[in-house]
Each structure stands twice: as structure tokens, then as C-alpha cells.
């Protein structure tokens, strides 16, 4: 289990009720030393968990990625960069990167839509809360539920096909998950449907925090709506847009639930995470799977670094 907490803090609230007398609670050490130790004691459990569940796995991941471990043997053989070579040469592995591009593109669509609706709803619109609620709610729905909802909607003869047929657009009817050429588009679209709400609410919040005096000044100067958008709104919400961008990239690469529930990764829709999991737990090539995870991590870090350069956001003042 986690490191045993001392009596001063942590998830053992049984120790919590302090004594009735106004004597200093806790370990009862000398006051001077205690003040020095206190922050560390408060931090023992959080930092221990952080290290144990985030940093140790990352470190191990690097180590596994240069072995041919299968998760079971006692011995791990060092194989150098063989795993990495295999990742980039095996076409099936390269394919999953290609699949993430669909979701990546989808996230641009997602942010554009979110920005559009956020701007729209930050001005005078009737039933504002209703639209806001409807646009946001899908984000709160369980991923498995969404997968099943859309399996039902996109199946041959399902909701989407019925809509198209009823408006006479027969020619547009496709096998939404069955046609390998559009399967990824369909799944990426489901992802957009799911996540647009979050971006929307975040942008809306940021836009609404812009001081209204700025708008008034702009209107007096005769600025058009488009002008207002481009020169006032966008610059003010750059940090939020930047953050959303990182989340979108990271999200596009880590897509798992929607494709897994809807197609199981078949028909060319296999994503990075689905393949990594298959490799680690079905094929038992933990070394190779770890190498894939390292690559994913590297890409996310790279993108974050680029984003921080291009759109530096104001650091929250933590010091």
C-alpha cells in the first residue's frame, strides 16, 4: 500500500478529532522542528501517490521499451532500440498514427464549432441557457453510452440513414462504420459530438469574462461584429484556446472508448491506445507496447512544447 502516514494528516481521519484541550495537536514534537517538518508531512501521501502512480510507471515504461519483456517472464532481455524500429516499420503500427490524424482534424472542427457557438451565445440570444445546456450535455454522457447510442444511430437502416432517406438524400447513405473509407470519419465525428460541449463552455466562460467596456469602446469606434471577434475576443481568450488545443491533441492521440465500443478497432479504425493495449495484454509484448506508449508521450510533450512557444499562456501564479 502507500507509505504509512504519520499521525498528522492523510486519509486516516480517525486521527482527526483533535483533543479538547487547546494543546498543540499532532506528534507533539518541539515547536521549531515541527514547523520545519509540517509541510513535508502534509505532502508525504500526495507526493508518494504521484510518484508511485505517475513517475514510476513512466520510468518503468522507458525501461520496458528497450526490452523484449512479455509481462510474465522473470527475465527481461535488453534489445536496444529494436522495439522502436518495429514500431516505425511495421505498417500496422504506422497505421494507427495515421488514424489519429482523423481525430486530430476532428478536434479542429470541434474547436471551430465551439468558438462559433461560444461567440454566438455570448451576445444577445433568446433561451441562452437552453442552448447552452443542450450543447454541453453530451460531454457529460458516459463514453460507453455514447458508443452504443451511435452504434444504434449509424447502423444500416438506423437513425442517420432514415433521416437521409426521408429528405431524399439516398445517395449519401453509406455504411458509416462498415465502409473502410469513411469509418474513421464517422468515429471522429462522434468524438466531435462528444467533446464540443467542453470546449464550448470553456470558451464561453473566457469570453464572458472580457470586460464589457471594451465592447462598448469598440462599438463607439464603429467596429463590426467580425472585427470585435477577431480583435477583441480571440486575443483575450488565447490562453484558453491554447489549452484546448493541447487537450485536443492529447485527446486525439489517446482515443480509446469510442472506437473500442463501436468497432473494437476493426476495419481500419484501430487507434494507438487500442493497439497498445492489445499488444500489452493480448499479445503479451509489453516491451513493444511500452515503446509505443513512449512514442505517444513524446508526441504529446512535443506538441505541448510547441504550443507553449507559439501561444504562451499566462502561468497561474503559484508562487
Amino acid at each position, binding site marked *: 500500500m502507500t507509505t504509512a502516514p504519520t499521525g498528522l494528516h492523510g486519509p486516516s481521519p480517525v486521527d482527526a478529532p483533535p483533543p479538547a484541550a487547546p494543546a498543540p495537536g499532532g506528534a507533539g514534537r518541539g515547536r521549531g522542528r515541527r514547523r520545519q517538518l509540517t509541510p513535508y508531512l502534509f505532502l508525504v501521501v500526495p507526493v508518494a501517490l504521484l510518484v508511485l502512480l505517475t513517475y514510476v510507471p513512466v520510468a518503468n515504461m522507458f525501461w520496458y521499451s528497450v526490452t523484449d519483456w512479455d509481462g*510474465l517472464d522473470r527475465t527481461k532481455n535488453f534489445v536496444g532500440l529494436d522495439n522502436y524500429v518495429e514500431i516505425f516499420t511495421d505498417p500496422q503500427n504506422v497505421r494507427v498514427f495515421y488514424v489519429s490524424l482523423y481525430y486530430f482534424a476532428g478536434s479542429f472542427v470541434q474547436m471551430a464549432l465551439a468558438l462559433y457557438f461560444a461567440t454566438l451565445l455570448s451576445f444577445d440570444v433568446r433561451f441562452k441557457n437552453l442552448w447552452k445546456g443542450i450543447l454541453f450535455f453530451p460531454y457529460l454522457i458516459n463514453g460507453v453510452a455514447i458508443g452504443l447510442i451511435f452504434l444504434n444511430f449509424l447502423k*444500416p437502416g438506423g437513425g442517420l440513414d432514415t433521416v437521409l432517406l426521408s429528405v431524399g438524400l439516398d445517395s449519401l447513405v453509406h455504411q458509416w462504420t462498415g465502409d473502410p473509407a469513411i469509418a474513421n470519419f464517422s468515429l471522429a465525428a462522434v468524438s466531435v459530438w462528444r467533446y464540443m460541449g467542453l470546449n464550448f463552455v470553456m470558451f464561453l466562460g473566457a469570453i464572458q469574462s472580457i470586460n464589457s467596456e471594451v465592447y462598448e469602446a469598440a462599438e463607439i469606434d464603429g467596429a463590426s461584429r467580425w472585427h470585435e471577434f477577431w480583435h477583441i475576443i480571440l486575443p483575450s481568450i488565447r490562453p484558453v484556446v491554447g489549452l484546448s488545443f493541447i487537450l485536443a491533441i492529447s485527446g486525439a492521440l489517446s482515443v480509446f472508448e469510442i472506437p473500442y465500443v463501436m*468497432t473494437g478497432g*476493426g476495419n481500419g479504425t484501430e487507434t494507438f491506445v487500442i493497439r497498445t493495449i492489445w499488444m500489452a495484454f*493480448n*499479445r*503479451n509484448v509489453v516491451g513493444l507496447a511500452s515503446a509505443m506508449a513512449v512514442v505517444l508521450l513524446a508526441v504529446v510533450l512535443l506538441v505541448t512544447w510547441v504550443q507553449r512557444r507559439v501561444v504562451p499562456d499566462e502561468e497561474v501564479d503559484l508562487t
Partner: protein
Amino acid sequence: MFLHQRRARLAVASAAVTVLALTAACSGGPGDEENTSGEPGGAITVLTWRTDLIEDGTFDGYVEQFKAAYPDVTDVKIEGLTDYEGEVRTRMSTTNYGDVLAIPGSVTPDQLGDFFEPLGDQAELAEQYRWINDKSFEGTSYGIPVVGNVQGYVYNKRVWEAAGVTEFPDTPEAFLDALQAIADDGIEVAPLYTNYKDAWPLSQWDGWLGAVTADPDWKNEVVESDEPWADGTDYGVVDGLVYDAVARGLTEADPTTTNWEESKRLLGTGQVATMVLGSWAIPQMQAAAQAAGEDPADIAYAPTPVTVDGSFHSVAGGDYNLGINVSSRNKVTARAWIDWFNHESGFSQAQAGLSPLVDGDIPDALADFVDEVELLTLNPAPDGKEALFGDIDTASGIVTTDPKFRQQSIDDARSGARTKQQVFDDLNTAWAKGRAEVGA
């Protein structure tokens, strides 16, 4: 104010502790206490792939009877896994995979001892049970089959005869022609249903390996060959048929929306004419036909569509083998379950399968089949080479025990991205690479 807050704190604290304690108490694993008595008792967990038998209460019946036979047994927890191979494989990375479980196909012979408890000497057990070789290694057996299957395909006789096909097709081409005749006659879903989405049924085609060439040593020969996928070879015919049937449009239009449970109903009602599955599927198909209001006698079974020396062949072999988790804490009861299941439960009869017991009967459903078709049992690998097939398979990256590669073949057949020959060439190249790496 201070006092009030403290009491509130206390309340929250005790609530939290209670919750934590409850979760700890409720998350007990299988057989928490080690059973050292040597007599069956206590609790065990049994993992099974037959989720349908859990749903309809059959397993509850088995548990009742078992507990009646062994009164000291407190509980037999049955856990059903829908994607058995995949889910069990993940669990086998830990020690937590039940007490009794079916040995997944992906475990290679040399790994048996790492995961499963030895059940006895191979030679001795072979006197009681058939098909013991499959899950044995170096003279020790780790698994006992629960039922025997023959391999071929299940089909809807009414639909086949309506299309004018009354004889078993005796060559792969004839098989495709039969499917085509059914398609021409008009069928709602497809002449052949692949169950692509659930994936595991695609591995059922492996049941034909060995029957195609009527060679009980096919597996031992394929490890020596650099071209397992060629015309006329076992893999060549099997994967060739899969590709051709899909490429000619004889399978379902949208493979990503197939569904196993649904497929049973489709076959029963004649919307689907054929599915390649082991004979274990017969009772399930008949039950589904009955539930759909059709005649269960429409469901029939045919052998692999290849004749060698004028007769059909079919590989008879054990279905899943039950084994005992090597880390089980109640191995005695686990063994008692396996023995009871094979001797007393009547499972193999109910499943219209061959009995795993050496002197067992042949069920009525298969009586005709056994008369007309020559059964063959595959030979085990020669000593020292038991792990060879698995090693080459892993090194090649094909992983024949996983349906993924066959799904890709189907993808290519639908999109035309690769021709059948290209698919074969790629597989052969990978296999040869695997052989070279392993030093075969």
C-alpha cells in the same frame, strides 16, 4: 462553534472509514482462505466462456448439483467472460484468474506449467480421457477437455435445399458455388456470415486445419515450411476461402455491425445460410431457431468441403480444456469440480458433443456425421518442439491464435487493397521471418 465542527468532522470521518472498510471487505477475491484440508470444501471461482449458459440458468443447476455432492463446498462463483480469449489473457498477467478456468488457445505448451497446476501424468490421464495431448507438455497434463467437437460448418438445410444444393460440397470451389447458388436464389442477409465484429468466431475456421489435407501432422509440418499459405495447403484453403467468399460478396454487407447472439437467430430463421463453427454450436443454433419460431431440424452440420481419397475428413478434438490456476488457494475443490463436470454433469451430452471420456457415447446429433465422415485426431508435436509453433507465430507477428489477421484479410477482400496472392505473400514472408528468428 468548535464543538459543533468537531462533531461534524467526526461524523464525516466515521462515514468515510465505514465506506473504506466496506469496500475492503467487499473486494475479496476467489477463495480467500487457503484450503489445506485435502477435502473439497470452501469456495472456488470458475471462469467460463459460456455466458449463454449463465443467462439461462444452466450453470446455477450445475452448481446446485455440485454442492449437493460435496456439502462442504460453500460457494462456486461462476464468472462469464464474453471475449474469453482476450479477457482471460489480460487476467493471466496477474494471479487473479479464478480457480478453475478453460485454458485459452493463446497459451503455448511451454507456458502451461507457469499458469496451470499439473493435473496428472499424461499417459495415465490418456487412459481415461481423450484428446489429452493438446494441453500436455513433457509428459504432464495441465488441462482436461470438457467436450469433444468435430469441425466443419453449420448450415440451414432448408435454405440450402431451396437453392438446389443437396450434396455436401466436396471442393472449395464447390463450396463457393453453393454459396453463390444461395445468393442467386435470394437471401436476406448473406449466404455466409463471418461474425467479424465479435472476432472470435473467425478463429473457428482454424478447426478445418488438418482436415483439408487429411494430415494429422499438419502443424508439425507447417513449422518446417516457409510457405504455409499456398494453394492446396491447409492455411491456403482456409484463408483463401475466407478471402474469396468476402471478395465475391457472399458474406454480410457490413461486417462491422455483425453480432454473435443475433447471428444465431439469423441462421435459425434462414436469413443467413452458413456459419463456420465447431459442432459445439449446433445446440445453440437449434435453441435459437426454436426461440424464433422455426424448426430446429433445419439446423444441420457439414464437414470441411474438401475430399481426400474420396472421403470427407473432420478433425475431432477437445473443446476448451479445464485447468486449475497454479496460484489457486483451493486446488482440491477445483479438481473436484473438473472431475465432477466431466463425469457427472452431463455437459457434453447436453452440448451434443463427443464425450471427453474414452468410453463415452456419441450423441444422436452427430451419429450420421460420424458415419459419413472420417474423423482424425491431430498428432502432438515431437518432444522438444512443442513450443515451436507458438514461438514462430509470435516472432512472425501474425499471431494466428488471434482473429486480427483474418479480420485484415476480410478488410482487404472488401476494399481490394491487397489481392489474395498478396495477402498470402505477406503472410508467408512474415512466417518465414519468424522461422528464421526462432532458428527453426
